[in-house]
């Protein structure tokens, strides 16, 4: 407990403790008939972190690590099956319906694919104005227009009036993602969960979107939970990085510390295979064997032990606790 308290900064916005999301796996007809026990998918299995005001925290991990599920649970788009979430000091899991509505204005989401997340039959104006209408925020059309223009400008779409009547298919990939960001900004949120916001975009356009997100943090103090599978991207934009493996955070620390001095064997392997844009620097790659196991059958003991290059007998029996190894740098491994 004491360890955890140290992570939490004084001006924290969000705090997550022991978050769990377990799903019942779909079983076949025969298994149901024989009333076999339903398998449990432990997508998120005890996650702790906190997010400060104006901080960018990155949840990084491979597919199946539970990073998106964690993000969605934090927004209560998926109901957690265990754990606690506090947002601005309030217990998020026991909010009244009315309070939850207000929370939904304060916490927004940006999805991965701007080709899928935008309604193709809605104009730019309608897309950005919709959240205002749903929440009955504006009293007049003039006010609504003003808010839409402001959001589009904030998202880096210049000449917003010219775009009002355009449809998503008339916009480029980068513009679409900016439109999605404008839709998130229009309610003036304090917190944005961005789920792989640039992974569908070309490299030459990525930087602009990332810069926009960082600038919004600097100007408006928006906090981000940034979800990505790309560690070099995480390092570039975030203040701190949490590396997830099979539903748990295995390492958490400042972006530079996690990438430059990774502690956990899993992070060390991941960092060693991050591509660098050079041809000579053939670094010493630590390739792991196999792929992430199925979250239905999480290994006993340390969940990374079957793939760990430094596995010892203790790892097969005892689950390591998540503890502070260096100041502000946490890891879950017996041998750190």
């Amino acid at each position, binding site marked *: 407990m004491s360890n955890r308290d140290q992570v939490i900064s004084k001006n924290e916005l969000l705090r997550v403790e022991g978050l769990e999301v377990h799903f019942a796996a779909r079983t076949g007809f025969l298994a149901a008939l024989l009333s076999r026990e339903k398998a449990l998918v432990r997508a998120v299995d005890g996650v702790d972190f906190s997010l400060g005001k104006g901080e960018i925290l990155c949840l990084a991990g491979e597919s199946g690590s539970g990073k998106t599920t964690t993000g969605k649970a934090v927004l209560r788009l998926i109901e957690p099956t265990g754990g606690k979430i506090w947002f601005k000091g309030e217990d998020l899991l026991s909010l009244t319906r009315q309070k939850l509505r207000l929370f939904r204005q304060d916490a927004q989401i940006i999805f991965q694919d701007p080709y899928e997340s935008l309604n193709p039959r809605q104009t730019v104006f309608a897309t950005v104005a919709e959240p205002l209408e749903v929440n009955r925020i504006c009293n007049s059309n003039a006010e609504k227009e003003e808010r839409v223009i402001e959001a589009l400008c904030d998202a880096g779409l210049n000449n917003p009036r010219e775009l009002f009547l355009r449809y998503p298919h008339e916009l480029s990939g980068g513009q679409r993602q900016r439109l999605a960001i404008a839709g998130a900004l229009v309610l003036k949120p304090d917190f944005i969960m961005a789920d792989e916001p640039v992974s569908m975009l070309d490299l030459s356009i990525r930087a602009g*979107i990332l810069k926009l997100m960082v600038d919004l943090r600097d100007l408006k103090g928006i906090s981000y939970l940034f979800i990505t599978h790309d560690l070099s991207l995480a390092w570039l934009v975030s203040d701190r990085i949490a590396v997830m493996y099979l539903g748990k955070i295995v390492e958490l620390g400042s972006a530079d510390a996690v990438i430059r001095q990774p502690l956990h064997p899993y992070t060390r392997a991941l960092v060693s*295979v991050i591509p*660098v844009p050079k041809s000579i620097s053939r670094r010493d790659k630590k390739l792991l064997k196999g792929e992430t196991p199925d979250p239905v059958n999480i290994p006993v003991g340390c969940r990374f032990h079957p793939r760990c290059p430094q596995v010892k007998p203790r790892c097969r029996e005892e689950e390591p606790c998540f503890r502070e190894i260096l100041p502000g740098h946490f890891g879950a491994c017996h041998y750190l």
Partner: protein
Amino acid sequence: MLLEVENMTTYYKLKDGFVRACENISLSLKQGEALGLVGESASGKTTAALSLIKLLPENAKVMSGKISIAGRDISQAMEAELRRIRWKEIAIIFQGAMNALNPVRRVGDQIVEVLRIHEKMTDKAALLRTIDLFEQVEIDPSRVRDYPHEFSGGMRQRVMIAMAIACNPKVVIGDEPTTALDVMVQAQVLQLLEKLRSKRRMGMILITHDLSVVGETCDRVAVMYAGQIIESGPTERVFENPAHPYTRALIAAFPNIEGERYLAQSIPGNPPNLLNPPSGCRFHERCSESMKLCSCQEPLPVKLDSGHFASCHLLGRRVLS
């Protein structure tokens, strides 16, 4: 030369005109060599690959150019001849293995089919070869009777690789073979491709949007922009002395965890519409160093040093002065 392509041009016919997807593409590949074809989406890299093995959709046509594999000109080859060339001479690994494999057939059977048709093998011999191929791509041979959905993404990609090398082709084209995979699995698959290439002395063309993949696996690289190769050369040279402003911007946009932490400038604007590409240099509208000449005259490739070419007016001027 194992593979030689000269001034290949491929257009797509649409209702409102021709999409000039590939224009004057020239490539060459030696035995055992790996060439990276890099570009962003819609730069024409996949069209170039499909043109090589003539797997283009119906509305696309190779308008001109010469393609020869092991000295044999196939640019005029008819379908029957092409069928003999595909898989045996030149094979392709497609991007999404989930879409490229037939979901209702066992993976082993799908490879057996290739061997029966192209190598005229008996079922039994083909199955034995398939088991051998599974071992080469490091999959447990007992899984030949599994269906594609029983494999993970990385394993499916290995099956695709096994299929591609089944008939011992001289050239393998990998069209974004690792794009949908996690970093760790990507590294594993790339390592496997490297191993197979050096063992079998195959030529490999690796198509990717990811510069770093090229940096680590390819001997030479060709950078495509808006349907044209704008720079090509030995990987080391191109990475260390990128000559074209587009290549420079692309390399700068790539986060380098060994370097300084900063957000690079993005390239302004968007890639042009190839129905109606810009006049002159196709990059001039987005180029920070654009001159008057760039908008009216198309730059020709300039030789910088052995094997390193780039098409940019800035270079022409430098060489002249």
